[in-house]
């Protein structure tokens, strides 16, 4: 727990310092055209820009400890409110992308390991070498071009909240989710296939085969769990990355998530919002990593003995 807090403090300090390095004065963006020096001074006073870095950090931290993330300099809306609006969008995208990536990667990974050099493996390897070299945004643009522009099946940009129209919401979600899932899926297949191939060489798999158990049962019950350590570890990192940092995909599809929020906030020098999002991302990473640690003993009882 102490480690947790220390890490979060370090992250917040680092963000504070780094944001200070960004050229441009936040006040400039806030002032209307032709504002007087007096108005400028008032604004500086209001937000406390005249105070030292340390004082500002301490006061920010103090507010944070009281559960106050501050108010956006730009919009005058409490940062917490904005995040609460946008986080569910990013969370939904991340969870769906993750679910899609795993739903494809687990069976494909298992089968590729079971029949290396087989048709599934060869197709997967081909797609992998093609997509590993392709950034997510290229995939996004290709998908938009094919399904949005050429075929016209799916909306090109835009976001419809689920509460407004569930069907349109799903249509709007499909392309961003596939863009996010694509690269991760390829990574998952590689990880799982590698571990799985090693497990399938082991004696207990041979012995399960000698017992005449059906192949799928051996693969899933006798091999998959021990082979998912890398997959689970990386999944934790990936889902954190997807929640806090699906920046490019959110920008391409103009999705009101955390990723696009952070870009807008940086452009506007709305550092108090950036602070909050960075802190939230760090927190998500830490929580996910702990969850991953908790998952190990579930995967392999031998770890259980070592930790308890």
């Amino acid at each position, binding site marked *: 727990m102490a480690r947790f807090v220390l890490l979060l403090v370090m992250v917040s300090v680092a963000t504070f310092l780094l944001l200070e390095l960004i050229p441009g004065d936040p006040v400039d963006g806030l002032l209307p055209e032709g504002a007087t020096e007096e108005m400028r001074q008032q604004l500086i006073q209001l937000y406390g820009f005249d105070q030292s870095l340390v004082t500002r950090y301490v006061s920010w931290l103090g507010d944070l400890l009281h559960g106050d993330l501050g108010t956006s300099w730009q919009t005058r809306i409490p940062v917490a409110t904005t995040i609460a609006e946008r986080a569910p969008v990013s969370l939904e995208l991340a969870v769906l992308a993750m679910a899609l990536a795993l739903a494809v990667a687990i069976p494909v990974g298992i089968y590729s390991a079971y029949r290396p050099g087989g048709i599934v493996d060869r197709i997967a390897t081909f797609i992998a070498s093609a997509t590993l070299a392709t950034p997510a945004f290229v995939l996004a643009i290709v998908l938009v071009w094919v399904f949005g522009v050429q075929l016209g099946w799916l909306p090109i940009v835009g976001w419809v909240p689920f509460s407004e129209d569930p069907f349109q919401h799903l249509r709007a979600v499909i392309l961003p989710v596939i863009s996010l899932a694509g690269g991760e899926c390829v990574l998952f297949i590689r990880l799982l296939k590698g571990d799985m191939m090693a497990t399938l060489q*082991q*004696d*207990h*798999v*041979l*012995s*399960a*085969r*000698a*017992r*005449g*158990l*059906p192949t799928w*049962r051996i693969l899933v*019950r*006798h091999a998959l*769990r*021990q082979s998912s350590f890398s997959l689970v570890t990386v999944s934790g990192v990936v889902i954190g990355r997807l929640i806090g940092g699906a920046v490019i995909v959110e920008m391409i599809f103009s999705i009101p998530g955390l990723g696009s929020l952070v870009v807008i906030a940086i452009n506007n020098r709305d550092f108090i919002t950036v602070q909050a999002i960075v802190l939230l991302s760090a927190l998500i990473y830490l929580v996910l990593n702990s969850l991953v640690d908790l998952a190990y003993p579930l*995967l*392999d*009882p*031998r770890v259980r*003995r070592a930790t308890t």
Partner: protein
Amino acid sequence: MSTIEARTASRLLLQVRNLKVWFDTPRGLVRAVDGVDLDLRAGETLGIVGESGSGKSVLSRSIMKILAPSARVLPGSEIRLKGLDLATVSPKQNKHLWGVDLSMVFQDPMTSLTPVLTVGAQLTETLRFHLGLSRDQAEEEAIRLLTLVGIPEPAKRAKQYPHNLSGGMRQRVTIALAISCSPELLIADEPTTALDVTVQHQILNLLERLQADSGMGMVLITHDLGVVAGRADSIAVMYAGRIVEKAPTKRLFSNMRHPYTRALIDAIPRISHPSHTRLASIPGRPPVLIDPPQACGFAPRCPSAQPRCLSETPVLEPTPIDPAHASACFFPLGTPAGDAARENNIKAGVNAAGTAVNAGESTDGR
């Protein structure tokens, strides 16, 4: 076919004919098993003896159909279980043959159980799949099996994971798994090699007792002639993918024909030897099985080897006096030709392949 022969044939549990299993490797074709014939009658034990790399594990895996994908079973190879040609059935078509009629105990109990499943789960899984038992019946049966193989507190052990058990206990569990569906043939591939000496004895006795109770046939594979000496009805000695000698156990020991069998026996340390006697060993190493030349595979290490052994491959033939005893040697021990060959080599101090032969190996060490 006479009635006696017919009756014998009907009791034949396992028949292996001309089994050839080759492996595709980057360096060439490895002839791991190169023409093996075996017979096992119901209820009997066949001991297969050979050193590492002699092909005995590949043999057992081809019977179980768990060979690596790079293995090729050559056409003409035949494995029959009670007359049924196993090449004509696949595990997919016949779900309840492997694991039921045919089962296997592996060498290393530390690795041959699935680490993430409890002992009980592995047993009940097999029982439910093959025998269609209900969950409760399977759990009951699992505990009965654990008791049968001599595991104390079976109900508690069933809930434990393999890593909670000692090596000997784990091997008992793998045996319980192997006999869970009352197999007709149990293949035990070096079942005691990974265990402590004291535990080895217990496990072998357990196998013997289970066999006596159930009447199953057993193939006991080992590199230790001492293990099979008192337990097998007949013994086949394997070298370089071939059987070099086979006979009913007593006749093999009383009338050894192949110099390799003899060398294996001589390599067993004896309590009757004085302390600090040098352990007898077989010079050299088993041959590489990639594109083997026309020659006896053992010739380079054989104290009796003659020029003929280096240019021709001897076939396994019954001895003139005993049709049940076969060996693959041009100069078998106990024949005038064999004795002469050996004596000449000792005199010359070297065999036809240029390997030194010293007198110590020639004297009857028994």
